[in-house]
């Protein structure tokens, strides 16, 4: 086992891993002197335990990954179903047809995930109660009071939910790596969520004149609220991919292969890779629309 390589890989996928494993409050420190000696003596064996300790509290099992995914799919499915049923929401052009297709996909994803969980012998989580205004059933001020009356508000929330879905699935693919069938299912659902997000972004631009691209860009107009929904895109802009530093790789002013300055290249690098989101962040975003 190449520990350094493993650490490098870990830091590539989880920037916090170094701190979590070896930082002051990390696992290596918590092992104490004896533990550290044991690690040195039997690194491959001990390292697995260390990793388990460091990550064990996270949603690291396949069941957890699919339960999270099911919550998000319940959320999206219910969101579109209610939007299509709203008598005060006007869908311009052919957009109702598009959203009917999207709603069907989300229902299909719910069915797929429910089956996987049921086949695994796990109790399938029930659908939570949703309030898409974000008022938690009128117990706090609404975030999106006219979500099912105003097409612009509806599209904004749809974009936030779909982009969250893409990042949340991406955050779970490595957990699913050991099970080819589930991995393939998750990856393929993930690609559909990305298509949804891109079409919804396109609708905002072409129908409503919003400054937004089909891909996530720091050049997009900001539609998140600090401290409330900004987690949807937090960390999405990173330009550096693991150990590969393309920021300082591309020529700048006289570039023949990429347009623009180093600043613009950095923006393009952020756009060219969609970043994962942790299970905790995804759950927190979902909980904005869930009440008990």
């Amino acid at each position, binding site marked *: 086992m190449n520990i350094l390589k493993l650490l490098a890989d870990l830091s590539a996928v989880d920037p916090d891993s170094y701190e979590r494993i070896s930082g002051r409050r990390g696992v290596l420190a918590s092992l104490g002197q004896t533990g550290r000696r044991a690690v040195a003596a039997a690194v491959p064996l001990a390292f697995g335990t260390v990793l388990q300790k460091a990550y064990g509290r996270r949603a690291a099992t396949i069941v957890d990954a699919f339960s999270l995914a099911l919550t998000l799919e319940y959320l999206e499915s219910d969101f579109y179903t209610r939007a299509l049923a709203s008598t005060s929401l006007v869908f311009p052009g052919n957009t109702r047809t598009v959203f009917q297709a999207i709603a069907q996909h989300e229902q299909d994803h719910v069915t797929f995930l429910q089956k996987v969980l049921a086949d695994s012998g796990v109790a399938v989580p029930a659908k939570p109660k949703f309030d898409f205004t974000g008022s938690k059933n009128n117990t706090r001020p609404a975030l999106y009071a006219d979500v099912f009356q105003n097409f612009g508000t509806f599209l904004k929330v749809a974009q936030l939910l779909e982009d969250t879905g893409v990042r949340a699935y*991406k955050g779970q693919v490595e957990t699913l790596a050991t099970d080819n069938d589930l991995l393939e299912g998750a990856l393929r659902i993930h690609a559909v969520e990305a298509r949804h997000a*891109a079409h919804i972004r396109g609708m905002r631009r072409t129908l409503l004149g919003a400054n937004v691209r089909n*891909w996530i860009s720091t050049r997009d107009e900001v539609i998140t609220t600090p401290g409330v929904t900004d987690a949807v895109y937090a960390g999405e802009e990173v330009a550096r991919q693991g150990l590969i530093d393309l920021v300082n790789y591309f020529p700048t002013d006289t570039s023949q292969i990429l347009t623009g300055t180093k600043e613009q290249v950095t923006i393009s690098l952020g756009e060219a890779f969609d970043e994962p989101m942790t299970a905790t962040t995804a759950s927190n975003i979902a909980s904005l629309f869930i009440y008990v």
Partner: protein
Amino acid sequence: MRRRSFFRVAGATVAASTLVLAGCADDPVAPDLSTPGTLNLGSGDIGVLNYAYLLEQLEAAFYQKVLDSPPTDFTPAELAAFTELRDHEVIHREFFKQVLGTSGIPTMTFDFTSISFTSRASVLAAARTFEDVGVAAYNGAGKLLTTKATLGQLSKIASVEARHAAFIRDLLQLSPFADVVETSGPFTGAATALTPAQVVEAIAKFTPFLVIIADLPTS
């Protein structure tokens, strides 16, 4: 050992890439480009990465050719968007080049003679093919990988390709999800996926060389 002689010893077969990785890490995987021209993607995660690298090379070369002489009926907004698409694909291409290092396939030259670059419709139709095939290729490639970090990395690119594909479909005013989302079977509601064999066939007219995938993982 010099590259030439190494490959004479190794037989320049697909297995060569494994040997290179195992024992001659400094030697590049030199594909056999003798007539009729073959490109061996190699085996294991390296092979899958080379597969993605080939697709990104193809996409980047296509968009660059569009930008070199854009269709006259492209709108300024479309031209700006295609510039961004080109930049993304160049970034993906160079990312794989850096990740693969000496294990990477060389820079390939493609055959775009089937595309009429003066026609917006022809360019968009080709872009749709490249993007839809690209997404489906990534959808099918994830399970072929064994390294988790590599899997995570490919998924970061896959969803951006899906966004590109959706954008191109919008420009073509196509039904957004026809033929790219399953409507029956166990993967109903999931995106279509293609195997490397299906992808190589789908892009065959653009690759004036034989792409050998025999050593790629199959699961």
